[in-house]
């Protein structure tokens, strides 16, 4: 593979709603540079918007890390880690259910995000915080 720089790791501190926009724009820009199509760019930006909004809403502050996955067995991809030290999620299975919200949301954020990406892991514990990792692979390039 040609040694082109497609972007180094990005770190976006999440402190408020402006950062939701910043994080999703950053993820979209990297996805675009990596050759993802418009639909995947939209899926990735929307997933990041959901996860970072959950940080603002439930944990107040946190961090988003966005990086390319290259030379991996599955080809080019993007990985986004959204981490906070908020209250954590007591019942992840429940939180992943369509329509479950502890607040006034639609409860579509987490289950919807799962449908938009290829891989999703949630590491959380009450009182410790929540880290959600999502990955999406560029199928077009893998062929």
């Amino acid at each position, binding site marked *: 593979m040609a040694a082109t720089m497609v972007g180094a790791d990005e770190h976006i501190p999440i402190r408020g709603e402006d950062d939701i926009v910043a994080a999703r724009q950053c993820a979209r820009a990297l996805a675009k540079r990596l050759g993802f199509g*418009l639909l995947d760019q939209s899926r990735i930006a929307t997933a990041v918007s959901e996860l970072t909004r959950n940080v603002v809403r439930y944990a107040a502050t946190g961090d988003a890390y966005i990086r390319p996955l290259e030379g991996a067995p599955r080809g080019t991809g993007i990985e986004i880690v959204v981490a906070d030290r908020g209250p954590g999620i007591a019942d992840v299975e429940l939180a992943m259910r369509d329509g479950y919200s502890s607040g006034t949301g639609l409860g579509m954020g987490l289950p919807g995000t799962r449908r938009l990406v290829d891989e999703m892991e949630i590491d959380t514990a009450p009182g410790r915080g929540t880290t959600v990792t999502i990955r999406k692979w560029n199928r077009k390039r893998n062929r």
Partner: protein
Amino acid sequence: MARVPIIKVGETLIATVQDELRDSDALTLQTELSAAVERTGARGVLLDLSAVETVDSFLGRLLGEVAASTRLLGAVTVITGIQPAVAITLVELGLELKGVRTALNPEKGMALLRRLQRLQRLQGEENARLLPARAGSRNGRNDGRR
């Protein structure tokens, strides 16, 4: 930043989102649209999202609420210019914008609004014509029931 201007053309309010919307911008737009419908008595709202690249569950829900609340105020809302990628993402996310009328572009949106407004007027006239008759028959049949 990202304030959305609302202009009135005839009986229709037109709002074109030109920037990435923060949550607070979206909430402001929602309140201002309702206020503008009430103030101007507009019968239609055209909300153009051609420049919007990302619609997540927050904005998706808000669009549904805009359509519902303007309807209660007597105006039909048509959302135009939703990009194909955004539409597919919304469905995958689990939001289908049920009850939200959409059109491909502002031109088609205006045409749809005209049709809907004509329909509304016809229904209004129909109701006005039937109302005295209905009221009369109700008095006759359901006397004392209601």
